[in-house]
């Protein structure tokens, strides 16, 4: 029951209607039932994993709250994290590592595999990467005293299972989610309007933009060795917007759906391609809930930026490499590409840190020029291209393919002015470019002043015309063959 499927369009109004009709005290229970039904619609056995993870964190959290003995508390925390995150690691990497070891053994003995390791041959339930992190954050928050252990097991179960966020986040914190369940869970009219707006806009980003770019991206990346430099260049640009619209579209829908139940989920994207540095991109604009998770539960405990320069650099690289590994399995299999992708983004942070004094010196010497529009645009463009280069490793089938793609584009750059006019652009290309231009236009407006506030200030006729335009774009241009969201495929 994907967000872009007919099943979900029938499921959601039913859940909202029953939710609204129920007395306040029963609403959480209804949402829990609906969440398990939604989740089981992908794979019934997945609901068992979900229940198991919930039970583990409930019991460990309860135990941590019951005792003052440090060793017991640490043991319970470790047990909970090892079970939840250990399962995640096993699901993601066991088969991959086993295959790599077998291959390394075979290469060492020039062809003959010296051993055959057992393979699990299973994939984790959808969304496991996300709810495992939510569960882990709950345990850590209870351990450090940021949060009292949940007394209400049902509320905790809803926290891990809440259907709008379970497949691909946001990776919500229990500190903000659980208190909302103690309230009426009634959506105000403003929340309903905002929720509907976000659902439609999220669908537009997913079904119209991301899914119209996807075929062109898939084609070029699948024949990297035979595609022309223009094919590859276009595919790299298109993929940057495909993955953004796919993932942020999902998040918009998730936040919008949650609002229909009076629940506010955290913001996960803030116009990331308008970032002026890769640090800004990863810190405050792209997949914010994951970035903050790594910041709070990994970077800070490692010492963050307060443990000396060398440790700071090392900590950054550790965080980005682990973040890269976390992304393995999201849409494009498990491979070394994600390690390289994480390390490359870590390297960007190193360079950003190293040149920070120069930027500060420059900003102090020429504040007007440093803050000028051309400079701003230049920073945004440089950041976007650095991120786009990194995405090649995320999307390519192998590190070799990614390097080949970048080499072929780099090799063809000098001839681009001659190649581009002769390239047989199709109507699909023009549609893709048009949609990207529209998205950038909207995001630039949104960056200056919220697009929703702008819309609210418009006359009703104009506002409704805008709504109908987006809705009918979904009908006329959307690809509705229920293509999965990239980030929910693990």
């Amino acid at each position, binding site marked *: 029951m994907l967000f872009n499927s*007919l099943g979900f369009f029938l499921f959601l109004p039913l859940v909202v209607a029953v939710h609204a009709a129920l007395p306040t005290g029963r609403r959480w229970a209804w949402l829990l039932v609906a969440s398990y039904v939604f989740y089981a619609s992908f794979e019934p056995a997945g609901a068992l994993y979900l229940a198991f993870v919930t039970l583990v964190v409930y019991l460990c959290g309860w135990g941590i709250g019951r005792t003052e003995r440090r060793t017991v508390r640490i043991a319970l925390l470790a047990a909970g994290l090892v079970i939840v995150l250990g399962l995640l690691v096993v699901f993601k990497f066991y088969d991959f590592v086993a295959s790599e070891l077998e291959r390394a053994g075979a290469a060492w003995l020039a062809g003959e595999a010296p051993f055959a390791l057992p393979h699990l041959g299973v994939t984790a339930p959808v969304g496991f990467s996300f709810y495992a992190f939510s569960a882990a954050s709950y345990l850590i928050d209870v351990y450090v005293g940021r949060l009292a252990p949940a007394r209400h097991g049902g509320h905790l179960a809803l926290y891990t299972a809440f259907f709008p966020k379970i497949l691909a986040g946001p990776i919500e914190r229990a500190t903000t989610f659980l208190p909302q369940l103690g309230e009426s869970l009634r959506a105000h*009219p403003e929340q309903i*309007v905002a929720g509907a707006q976000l659902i439609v806009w999220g669908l537009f980003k997913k079904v119209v933009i991301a899914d119209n770019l996807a075929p062109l991206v898939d084609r070029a990346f699948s024949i990297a060795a035979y595609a022309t430099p223009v094919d590859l260049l276009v595919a790299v640009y298109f993929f940057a917007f495909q993955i953004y619209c796919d993932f942020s579209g999902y998040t918009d829908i998730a936040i919008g759906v949650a609002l229909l139940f009076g629940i506010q989920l955290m913001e996960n994207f803030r116009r990331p391609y308008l970032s002026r540095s890769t640090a800004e991109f990863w810190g405050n604009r792209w997949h914010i809930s994951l970035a903050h998770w790594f910041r709070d539960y990994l970077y800070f405990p490692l010492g963050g930026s307060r443990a000396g320069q060398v440790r700071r650099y090392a900590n950054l690289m550790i965080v980005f490499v682990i973040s890269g590994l976390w992304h393995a399995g999201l849409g494009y299999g498990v491979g070394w590409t994600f390690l390289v992708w994480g390390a490359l983004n870590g390297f960007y942070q190193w360079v950003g840190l190293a040149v920070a004094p120069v930027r500060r010196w420059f900003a102090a010497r020429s504040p007007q020029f440093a803050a000028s529009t051309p400079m701003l645009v230049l920073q945004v463009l440089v950041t976007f291209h650095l991120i786009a280069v990194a995405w090649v490793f995320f999307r390519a089938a192998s590190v070799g393919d990614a390097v080949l793609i970048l080499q072929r584009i780099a090799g063809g750059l000098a001839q681009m002015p001659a190649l581009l006019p002769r390239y047989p652009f199709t109507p699909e290309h023009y549609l893709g470019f048009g949609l990207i231009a529209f998205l950038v236009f909207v995001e630039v407006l949104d960056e200056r002043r919220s697009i929703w506030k702008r819309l609210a200030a418009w006359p009703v006729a104009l506002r409704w015309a805008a*709504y*109908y335009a987006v809705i*009918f774009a979904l*009908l*006329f*241009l959307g690809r*509705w063959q229920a293509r999965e969201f990239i980030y929910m495929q693990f």
Partner: protein
Amino acid sequence: MRSILRTALAFAAIGVVLYAAAYYASERLLYRTGDTNPFFKIETAEFEAYDWVILGASHAMPLDFADFNAHMERETGLKIHNLASPGTGPLYNRFVFEHFLRDHRTAGLVYVLDSFAFTSPTWNEERFADAKLLARAPFSLEIAWRMARYSMEEGVDPRAVLDYLTGFSKINNRDRFKSDIWEGEAQFERVHRPSAAATAKRIDYLFPQDAPDQAALARYLGEFAALLDLARRQGVEVAVIKMPVPPRFYEKLPGEAAFDRRLLALPAMRQALFRDFSLAMDEREFYFDTDHLNRTGLTQFFDRYLKAILVGSETAVP
């Protein structure tokens, strides 16, 4: 809350009106760009009565590529209506034939038979939900009602019925301004260069299961028998043929001999003329791809075999 409900209702009402306008425009556009879809062909049929109707999957479609149907009509002096559509099995074809018989008549039915179409719901129930087919099918309450019945009795996905009723695939049709011509028609004049890899890929596509699904085979043979019975009840003469395919393609067809035995064991087949031309034409220059006849091949096939069947001669045995 009451005010927001009123606003929502007004918004939805305007939306419905706009949707209806989009639906109407899509339906009109369909009549300008329609061509291959069997329901479009039935809706826009020139005559009420035909001498022959042709049903089947893609192997039957070249018989209506370019001017070939007109050529056959000229050569035989008969009225022929080709209602084949790609990847469709006996269930889908029975549906088409039932719809055709509602307002039209035919003296004969040529069913171009492919074993793959009897092996999986992919080529039967699931074809009803194919957006490409739905996008080109004109609206008719009779089709909607029949689809609803097939949904209840034959396992067609109710979402296909909903799609047809709401016209969603028509409004959402990405090729709305393009003529509804099957991609194979553009290659009709070409000569295929044989490729083992292409043949293997094509066989994998047609037979996605590793082993033939015996339950599915039994079910779709039953559907085919129902189609033959329907023709018999209507007094329609039936010719079941298997079109020529290259030997390298035929060799790869899984369980073809066993399929033929089960087909011929059907009591309903006793009333029908059956001709297997699978290995009748092995020249490479007769095919435009791995298994479809090009113009040269089809002309030869028509002259050597099909014409005799259509005009009722008994010299049709290859």
